[in-house]
């Protein structure tokens, strides 16, 4: 068999360590899908290209490797868009491969032609269209390098069909010059010394952990820093699980749906060490009133993330791992301080006030699910109330064990991302938690799960409504409910059965344990439909336009 462009792609992917592609064929991808038969790379056939992108994303988040998805030109490529944008917002390393119409047809509105480079420009780190088969290797190498270095993110490579199919002599490979690499900006040691000095001198310090700790594999350093200086920490949505929340220093999640303790302590602290976070609007709420007493040091590899929304006193642009390695020996070892005692007292007060962590019966149910599952379980949360219930109640013991769409807030993410997580970590149990709304958005992936018999435990917390929107309408739109009622006529257990997956329906305040037990004791995938009260909201919540300490505790606030 002659070597063609498609062979070169698969060989380069192998050399980049790719074991799995999530994809969907079309006429223009066929050279690749044909040659995949000769390759050890496994191809998972999804039921929608959006799901292929989310699965690659979930795979990358669960393993730390680059996720790869593949779609055909035209609608295949445009269906990837939501998945690429989701990966971009949460800085997931991903390479999206799209087939394109042949170079001779480019720009002619050929069948299934679309300008996917133009469409994805604002949601990728970079994109390439390959016009010469001899450039394939170096283009793909650049794409992988770019996806995983610096602040990671998705890179798209668009390959016309004739390039995929054209004969290729590996001796004629040419390299596409990367005019610049994702250069490391080395900040001075002096800046680290300043940060250390400020931290050592502060009386009420806290650490904000963002997604960058996971992306830079700096879990151990961060834990060592927290334990040495005995500093309490809060996390952003993306930072959850980076450091075991049960180590005694965790204050929980900050932001509009965060824990009251976390938000209150950030408001009182006099020093913030922010690591791998971009101070998004969801974390800070009203930016003018965020942490009014604090001097802020920020460590991030992305220069645009520093000082984007908030003034930073001590910026450090660079690799988190290197920064923390330099910082750790300069930090004074401390005894438990008055500050920790004050936090502890406040924590007790809040717990008295807010039974069940503010997540009601749904939160208790999720706690029961975690207790029934093995310790090394990965949970993939969707978006909406189910997401907040999950991130607030699930104790993430290890860094990659809680996956959710933070920046983009993509409903329908959990089911396909769980596929990616399960494929990437077959030794671990995977639970996908979604609401009924999000579940409908990628419901077709039940077919993929059933086909590959992936043992994912799928939990649908069903309140028959778009719960988070319902809560907002209830609290901030004078209870004028509209366009949020999904109804409960659909028998989701029967739907699951139709896809070849067993399941059961329970009501969380009646018989939760029976359903959980059956789910845990069933080999392979299982759908557990858990009915909850539509009034089971999340509290506290920060109203739009308010600061992090102006929390509402119930509808009468």
């Amino acid at each position, binding site marked *: 068999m002659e070597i063609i462009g498609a062979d070169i792609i698969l060989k380069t992917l192998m050399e980049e360590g790719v074991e799995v592609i999530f994809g969907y064929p079309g006429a223009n991808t066929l050279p690749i899908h044909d040659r995949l038969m000769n390759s050890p790379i496994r191809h998972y056939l999804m039921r929608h290209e959006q799901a292929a992108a989310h699965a690659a994303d979930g795979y990358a988040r669960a393993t730390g490797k680059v996720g790869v998805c593949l779609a055909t030109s035209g609608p295949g490529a445009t269906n990837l868009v939501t998945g690429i944008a989701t990966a971009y917002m949460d800085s997931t390393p991903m390479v999206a491969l799209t087939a394109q119409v042949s170079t001779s047809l480019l720009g002619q509105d050929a069948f299934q032609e679309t300008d996917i480079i133009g469409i994805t*420009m*604002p949601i990728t*780190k970079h994109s390439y269209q390959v016009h010469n088969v001899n450039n394939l290797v170096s283009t793909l190498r650049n794409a992988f390098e*770019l996806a995983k270095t610096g602040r990671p993110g998705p890179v798209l490579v668009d390959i016309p069909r004739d390039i995929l199919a054209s004969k290729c002599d590996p001796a004629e490979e040419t390299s596409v*010059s990367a*005019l610049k690499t994702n250069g490391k900006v080395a900040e001075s040691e002096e800046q680290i010394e300043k940060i250390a000095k400020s931290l050592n001198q502060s009386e009420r310090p806290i650490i904000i952990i963002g997604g960058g700790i996971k992306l830079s594999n700096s879990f151990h350093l961060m834990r060592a820093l927290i334990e040495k200086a005995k500093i309490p920490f809060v996390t952003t949505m993306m930072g959850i699980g980076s450091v075991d929340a049960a180590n005694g220093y965790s204050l929980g999640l900050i932001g509009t749906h965060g824990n009251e303790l976390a938000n209150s302590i950030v408001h009182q602290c006099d020093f913030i060490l922010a690591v791998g976070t971009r101070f998004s609007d969801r974390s800070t709420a009203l930016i003018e009133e965020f942490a009014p007493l604090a001097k802020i040091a920020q460590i991030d590899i*992305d*220069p*645009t993330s520093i000082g984007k929304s908030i003034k930073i006193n001590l910026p450090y642009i660079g690799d988190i791992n290197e920064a923390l390695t330099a910082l750790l020996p300069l930090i004074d070892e401390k005894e438990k301080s008055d500050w920790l005692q004050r936090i502890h007292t406040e924590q007790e007060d809040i717990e008295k006030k807010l039974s069940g962590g503010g997540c009601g019966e749904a939160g208790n149910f999720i706690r029961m699910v975690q207790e029934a599952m093995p310790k090394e379980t990965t949970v993939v949360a969707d978006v909406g109330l189910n997401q907040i219930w999950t991130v607030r109640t699930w104790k993430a013991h290890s860094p990659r064990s809680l996956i959710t769409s933070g920046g983009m807030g993509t409903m329908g993410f959990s089911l396909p991302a769980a596929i990616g997580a399960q494929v990437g970590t077959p030794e671990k149990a995977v639970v996908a938690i979604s609401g009924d709304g999000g579940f409908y958005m990628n419901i077709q992936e039940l077919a993929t799960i059933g086909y590959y018999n992936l043992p994912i435990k799928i939990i649908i917390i069903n309140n028959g409504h778009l719960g988070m929107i319902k809560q907002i309408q209830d609290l901030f739109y004078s209870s004028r409910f509209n366009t949020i009622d999904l109804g409960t006529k659909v028998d989701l257990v029967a739907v699951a059965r139709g896809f070849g997956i067993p399941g059961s329906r329970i009501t969380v305040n009646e018989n939760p344990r029976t359903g959980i037990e059956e789910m845990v004791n069933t080999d392979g995938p299982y759908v557990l439909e858990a009915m909850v009260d539509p009034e089971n909201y999340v509290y506290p919540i920060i109203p739009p336009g308010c600061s992090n300490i102006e929390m509402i505790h119930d509808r009468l606030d």
Partner: protein
Amino acid sequence: MLRKMREQEQTISILVSNQPGVLSRVANVFGRHGYNIKSLCVAETTNPEVSRITLTSESDPDFTEKIKKQLEKLVDVVEVSDLTGPSYIQREMMLIGVPVMKQEIHSDILRAIEMFGCRIVTMSPDYYVLEITGLQDETAAVLKYFQPFGVREMNRTGSIALLRHLSKNISQ
């Protein structure tokens, strides 16, 4: 825009790889942040793999710093520098076409040409095409002067700029 305060004209030079689609990535960064590009000039540098985009935009200095960081993230961008300020010489070129309706205004036009230091690119008994090079304020003043004569056509390049002194760094 909400950011009207302290806005002033900034001249930015962006060295980019000389490839299709690069200009649209650069323009996207401005558009996405709600900033208008007032003038734009693109040309190859002494290195044929590198082009220089020189553009002017009205924004506050803080924003120039932020947009510089955003531009530097683009893979195709090699270097971004701010060419605003007295250390830089700025020039733009403008071509204007002036019809000569009445014979008696010939002498007025010729006097103005001499005074402004314009060059006559082409002329016929009823039409002049003039070339003017200078600061944007100067080309604007020339345009304003000739408007009463009925400027038929006008085209300007937008500003380009260069460091006034010998640079210690080797530039493109």
